[in-house]
């Protein structure tokens, strides 16, 4: 009895293994097709979870303001930040035009809208997958934004039909940035702990204040200038050191967004 039971169990295990191997070979070979098919189901599931996250925002955080008020204030702040960035850009451009009596071309950004279809959770809290890939013009390193140009991350890997985006708060991501202070300090905004960014190596003689906005400088290939990165919420400055550091809080929380835009041009 025993040997035939073992044989049956062994045959069953082999059948399962072969089925799994066949499925995964098919998935690997037809990845684009498979991911497009899965995305049809993933989009509404991801949107449902994100909706719950957005609706329960502020519920568990002690605050003097209600969740609705916080959301309203955040939306107002973001709209003002976008306006301020545009105003600052126009002021600079105006100054240059007056100096040179020449006209610069306004660059129209081409974007691709994408849905967030999967997130990695604790294993990789700063990454998510979108349902657009190289077939849609998405390329490695492309900036990803939400709203009116608030940077959330960059494309870190691309497939035919999907791409993985790593958020700007990941330590492996650095973005050429400009601080909207009096001197428009240029620096590198590096991800810190998955929640904040750091603008390091700023000379001590530069004046940085809390609530200064940080935007992309345009000095990085493929990342246009003027995208909002975040707002300074702390400055670490020691006069004995040659440099100071600004801690930047991102303006957008990707966990509350089910759709993003990838800048493809």
């Amino acid at each position, binding site marked *: 009895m025993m040997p035939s039971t073992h044989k049956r169990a062994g045959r069953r295990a082999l059948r399962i293994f072969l089925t799994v191997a066949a499925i995964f070979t098919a998935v690997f070979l037809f990845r684009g097709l498979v991911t497009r098919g899965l995305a049809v*189901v993933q*989009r509404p599931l991801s949107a449902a979870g994100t909706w719950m996250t957005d609706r329960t925002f502020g519920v568990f955080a002690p605050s003097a303001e209600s969740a609705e008020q916080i959301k309203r204030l955040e939306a107002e702040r973001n709209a003002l930040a976008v306006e301020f960035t545009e105003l600052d850009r126009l002021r600079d451009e105006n100054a240059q035009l007056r100096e040179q009596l020449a006209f610069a071309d306004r660059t129209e950004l081409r974007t691709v809208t994408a849905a967030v279809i999967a997130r990695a*959770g*604790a*294993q990789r809290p700063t990454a998510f*997958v979108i349902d657009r890939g190289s077939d849609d013009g998405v390329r490695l390193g492309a900036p990803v934004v939400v709203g009116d140009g608030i940077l959330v991350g960059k494309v870190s890997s691309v497939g035919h039909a999907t791409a993985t985006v790593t958020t700007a708060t*990941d*330590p492996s991501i650095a973005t050429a940035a400009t601080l909207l202070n009096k001197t428009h300090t240029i620096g590198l905004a590096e991800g810190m*702990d998955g929640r904040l960014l750091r603008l390091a190596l700023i000379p001590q003689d530069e004046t940085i204040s809390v609530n200064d906005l940080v935007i992309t400088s345009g000095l990085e290939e493929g990342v246009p200038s003027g995208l909002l990165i975040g707002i300074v919420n702390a400055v670490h400055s020691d006069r004995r050191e040659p440099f100071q550091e600004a801690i930047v809080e991102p303006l957008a929380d990707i*966990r509350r967004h089910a759709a993003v835009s990838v800048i493809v041009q």
Partner: protein
Amino acid sequence: MNTSLLNAAFFLAFFLLQTSFISSLPGVLSLTPLLFVVGVYLVQHQSFSAGAWWIIAFGLLTDLLGVTAAPVSTLAHAAAAGVAFLSARHLFSNRSLYGVVACGILSLAVRDAVQAAWLGVRFLRHPETVLWKPFLDALPWEAALAVILLVILFSFAPKIRTMLTKTFLLGRSHETF
């Protein structure tokens, strides 16, 4: 063949639920290891070895589809599935809740240990790119949610067994609890 397709269909449903819905939930709810716990439960309490394959397949698929950074998820889930399978057969009783919970916690610990080891290797080469805090903060919550899920599954054991038998995923003579 039908059994295999049904297996694949159930696995896919749990996979999509895990990576798209659960991972988008607010706060600690996004850490709920649903598919992992279901797989361990099926292996340990229902003696349904395909549960171990589900766990391996989950790791493989998340790496393949770019949800996680390959090959850490495949390695971690393969190790956990192996431990779940072996401990269910040789270590823990499949007749008690404690056996089920112990198997679940041990498998989860093995999975997290492999992931931690991988992070450690990365830390040696590029220490600035490793996020220890979110990973370590998630561990107790994942364990707590896993225990809660296992208790719920254990309490529905007869119904689960009936469903597995009716769908021919499990033979009627299959011995479990």
